[in-house]
């Protein structure tokens, strides 16, 4: 039996990471409030069984991926049967290894997602507890999902996780960023050919599918294959009711429909994956919903975007792997890429660890490298800042990150502004209404980017070296301290950066 969201709920319960609540709660503000508070202390997930105004049946799983400051991946690890106490470097290495063993999905005849089927006029999105997340939000949003489309010219199935506004009983507005494969496939193929694009929005199922959907993978990579890799078994898929799309057989819900050429609906403003509100209300991709299939008593999982929320945890635990996949594919002289820099605020800076002295530096090398990184499909539109470090700086340790930022950067020499790139509207808050027509397209604006070169420019003088736990003591002693820490009576788990120094991605 394939792993699904209900197995995950049970695994969370066994790990002491689930609180089940039978009291009546409201989809309007109340459910999301639990996650925001849980996110402040790396708290539990919540399963709500009784939702105000919703006939008994649908349930909501909130805060499903909330993690801690140093272990944002703790629940992701539970979902994949891994130790939630793995340190970050070990987690990334393990996931990177699993990703490389992609497994093709298998098609099955039917599955639990077909237990209830509603078509045409029976479709009513408003009868499900999709939540309202914040004061000032421009609507109810499905923040955690896997949006499934297919390249019309190949077998490539693309899956992504986007903010989706529930516009009406049978309309959704999907808001992928401009750099995503979704936009590329729809804009350059379906729309230009005057064709309608079949779409399916999957909610629940194996968490591995949604995890893979959240990575920004290179074009041509099918996220189902990656999900199979990180799970270790192939995903089971079933045909959609209204198109040829393959959808997860054990999803809690699948919303099927189409996006017709040039059809948009107004969307937003909303809270974003980076903990800020974004606007203005602007046209985004309009999905006509023709069918909903779901399990009996479906569990609608829900995430928030505030600091420490599941969104942050997913960014900090998984988004890096998409960057790593690009690094691997294109052979850049970079050890690791990490699109998340400021603790627990999601992707607010793009960070790469530059493998120093390979190839030999030359004037303008960093800018060249940056342009190569940003020139790749799926990477170029992401963020406005890119920081490069030496590869012995553990960018997963915020102390080392900031130390390098403040000690290795001469603003006059090491901060380089580029020519304008498309960047996301998250950074459009400075823009006045009358400027928008000039600079703003759906989900993107044109702006300069900033490269920060935080690599060491000279050899340390007189043999000066970094003083920390890893360099001060013999390795044997370090190991002994780590292994005996708890036995000596300390409760807080120590962090040992040895795994980063030895990491081979």
């Amino acid at each position: 039996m394939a792993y699904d969201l209900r197995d995950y709920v049970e695994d969370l319960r066994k790990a002491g990471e689930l609180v089940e609540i039978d009291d009546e709660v409201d989809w309007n503000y109340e459910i999301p409030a639990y996650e925001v508070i849980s996110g402040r202390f790396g708290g539990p997930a919540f399963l709500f069984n009784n939702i105000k105004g919703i006939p008994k049946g649908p349930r909501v799983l909130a805060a499903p991926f909330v993690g801690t400051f140093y272990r944002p991946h703790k629940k992701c690890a539970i979902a994949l049967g891994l130790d939630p106490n793995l340190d970050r470097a070990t987690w990334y290495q393990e996931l990177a290894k699993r990703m490389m063993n992609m497994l093709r999905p298998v098609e099955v005849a039917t599955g639990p997602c077909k237990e209830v089927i509603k078509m045409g006029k029976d479709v009513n999105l408003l009868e499900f507890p999709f939540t309202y997340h914040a004061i000032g939000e421009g609507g109810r949003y499905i923040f955690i999902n896997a949006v499934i489309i297919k390249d019309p010219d190949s077998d490539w199935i693309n899956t992504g996780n986007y903010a989706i506004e529930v516009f009406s009983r049978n309309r959704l507005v999907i808001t992928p960023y401009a750099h995503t494969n979704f936009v590329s496939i729809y804009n350059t193929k379906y729309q230009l050919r005057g064709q309608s694009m079949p779409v399916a929005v999957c909610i629940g199922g194996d968490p591995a599918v949604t995890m893979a959907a959240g990575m920004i993978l290179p074009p041509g990579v099918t996220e189902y294959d990656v999900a199979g890799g990180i799970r270790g078994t192939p995903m089971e898929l079933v045909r959609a009711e209204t198109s040829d799309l393959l959808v997860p057989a054990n999803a809690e819900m699948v919303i099927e429909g189409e996006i017709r050429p040039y059809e948009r609906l107004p969307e937003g403003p909303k809270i974003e994956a980076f903990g800020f509100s974004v606007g203005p209300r602007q046209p985004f991709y309009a999905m006509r919903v023709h069918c909903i299939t779901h399990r009996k008593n479906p569990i609608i999982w829900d995430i928030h975007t505030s600091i420490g929320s599941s969104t942050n945890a997913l960014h900090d635990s998984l988004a890096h792997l998409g960057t790593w996949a690009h690094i691997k594919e294109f052979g850049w002289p970079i050890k690791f890429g990490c699109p998340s820099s400021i603790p627990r605020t999601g992707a607010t800076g793009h960070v790469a660890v530059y493998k120093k002295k390979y190839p030999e530096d030359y004037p303008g090398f960093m800018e060249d490298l940056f342009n190569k990184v940003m020139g790749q499909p799926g990477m170029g539109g992401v963020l406005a800042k890119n920081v490069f470090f030496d590869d012995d700086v553990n960018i997963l340790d915020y102390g080392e990150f900031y130390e390098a930022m403040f000690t290795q950067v001469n603003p006059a020499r090491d901060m380089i502004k580029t020519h304008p790139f498309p960047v996301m509207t998250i950074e459009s808050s400075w823009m006045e209404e009358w400027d928008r027509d000039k600079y703003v397209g759906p989900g993107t604006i044109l702006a300069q980017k900033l490269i920060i070169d935080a690599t060491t420019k000279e050899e340390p003088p007189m043999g000066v070296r970094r003083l920390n736990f890893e360099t001060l003591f013999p390795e044997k002693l370090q190991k002994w301290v780590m292994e005996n820490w708890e036995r000596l009576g300390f409760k807080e788990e120590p962090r040992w950066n040895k795994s980063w120094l030895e990491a081979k991605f």
Partner: protein
Amino acid sequence: MAVSYWLYKEEFEKKKEALDKGEPVEMEIMDQGEKVWKQAKVMIFQQPVEGSEPVGLLGPFSEPHDEGKYHIKVVEILPSPLEDEE
């Protein structure tokens, strides 16, 4: 103050000349019960009138303000965009 609807501020500013004229204008209103936007014909007032309901304005970056400063009378809820074809 609790309001029944939000109006999108930028759209409201463009249609403000209809204020207190008693003539319906077409605009998006966000129903605070369902938390979805609806296309509607409404009359806009500065003071409550019979059958009117208080509204707030929503700024372009999720900032609600002027709650209860204006009131609207919903004349007709129109089909949502793209809805009329089906």
